[in-house]
């Protein structure tokens, strides 16, 4: 059990790890933005009364909720290029996998927020002669958005953790960079412990800040 810790190998390659952290944050932000767009469209489709719209949207959500993300990553990187006839670089494949997958979850966040608004509010707005659009914009969405904040944050937090899977496609995010540093220094204990701490610091800081925001919003509402 006696182990001589030696972090000098990590410090001398710390710039690589920092570059990886930037890569992680980059891919997370791009996928959150695209995922929200996908989720918004899918949520509207699911809420529609037309079967042709809500059936495919439901299938999309159920597929992504019941299959593991790593399968999506490999599918977009290795299988999709065969169908479309051109190869994707790891960043693009990873973003596609992450944003469609999180899109399915964001869609549920949006839908959940909208359907949680009491029926009386819909009926009241209708009784006042509001059109569907005005009702959505002025009555339903302002209330629904506030309820969406907490699950939205949870999902984005999960997505950020899932970006680590992009390492398996050789996209240079934090975990992949750590693997590179490890193969140069043969110091897995120090390298992997360091990046675990880096992930922890970033994610814990973000989740603590978000919890503060959430509490603030709850007080306003």
């Amino acid at each position: 059990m006696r182990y001589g810790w030696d972090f000098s190998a990590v410090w001398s390659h710390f710039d690589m790890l920092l570059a990886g952290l930037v890569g992680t944050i980059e891919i997370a932000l791009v996928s959150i933005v695209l995922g929200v767009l996908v989720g918004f469209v899918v949520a509207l489709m699911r809420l529609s009364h037309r079967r042709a719209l809500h059936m495919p949207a439901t299938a999309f959500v159920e597929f992504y909720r019941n299959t593991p993300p790593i399968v999506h990553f490999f599918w977009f990187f290795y299988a999709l290029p065969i169908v479309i006839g051109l190869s994707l670089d790891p960043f693009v494949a990873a973003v596609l996998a992450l944003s469609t997958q999180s899109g399915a979850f964001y869609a549920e966040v949006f839908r959940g927020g909208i359907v949680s608004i009491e029926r009386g509010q819909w009926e009241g707005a209708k009784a006042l002669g509001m059109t569907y659009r005005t009702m959505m914009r002025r009555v339903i969405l302002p209330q629904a958005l506030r309820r969406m904040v907490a699950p939205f944050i949870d999902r984005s937090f999960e997505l950020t953790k899932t970006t680590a899977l992009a390492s398996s496609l050789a996209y240079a995010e934090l975990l992949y960079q750590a693997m590179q540093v490890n193969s140069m220094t043969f110091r897995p204990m120090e390298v992997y412990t360091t990046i675990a701490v880096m992930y922890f610091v970033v994610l814990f800081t973000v989740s603590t800040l978000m919890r503060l925001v959430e509490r603030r919003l709850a007080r306003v509402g």
Partner: protein
Amino acid sequence: MHYEWDFKVVLDSLPILLRGLVVTVELWMVSLVLGLALGLAISLGRVSGRGWVNGPAIAYVEAFRNTPVLVQLIWFYYAFPIVLGQQLTPFVAAVLALTLNTSAYSAEILRGGIVSIARGQWEGAKALGMTRAATLRRIVLPQVFRRMLPALTNRAIELAKVTSLASLLAVNEVMYEGRLLSSTYYRPLEVLTVVALFYFLLIYPGSYLSSRLERHLAARD
């Protein structure tokens, strides 16, 4: 866009994929049972009111929830054996990482359940002369498990998806076999699509039951 689908390779190697699926289920069940048991112990530590138990338990839970599960898997396979002084097989390392990860999440779920039980129940049991342990076992925990069943089922579903990451440690579960087959026969589209389907069939019944259960419990309250 013209692609000749050829599922013959998949059909021929179906026994290999099914064998992988068995390993997936093994990994899932072992980690689930161990993770829930450990999670229960940790949740009891969290509500024990003793600072020296509570503090480390919080740190443990936060460490596992604020780092990507893939990093945990890699840490337990590549880094932990160095401290341990003994190499772990991929399966054992995966079980270890997934068990600890599951225990952290389920500890939070169970803790939430325990504190949600009204104080009057503890006091009533005490008035009847029951010890704390007996109260916990006969009054509190049965209610906690029922109330938290949907959340625990969701955790089990998440775990089923996460087992696929063990493929990156070369545990020969279904994703690993799928990747091997797709690179051997160069048929990633067919093989990975079938693997996705396998996961869907494995996971969907559970998530369907869990959503039914959630609605059922919500209607009763």
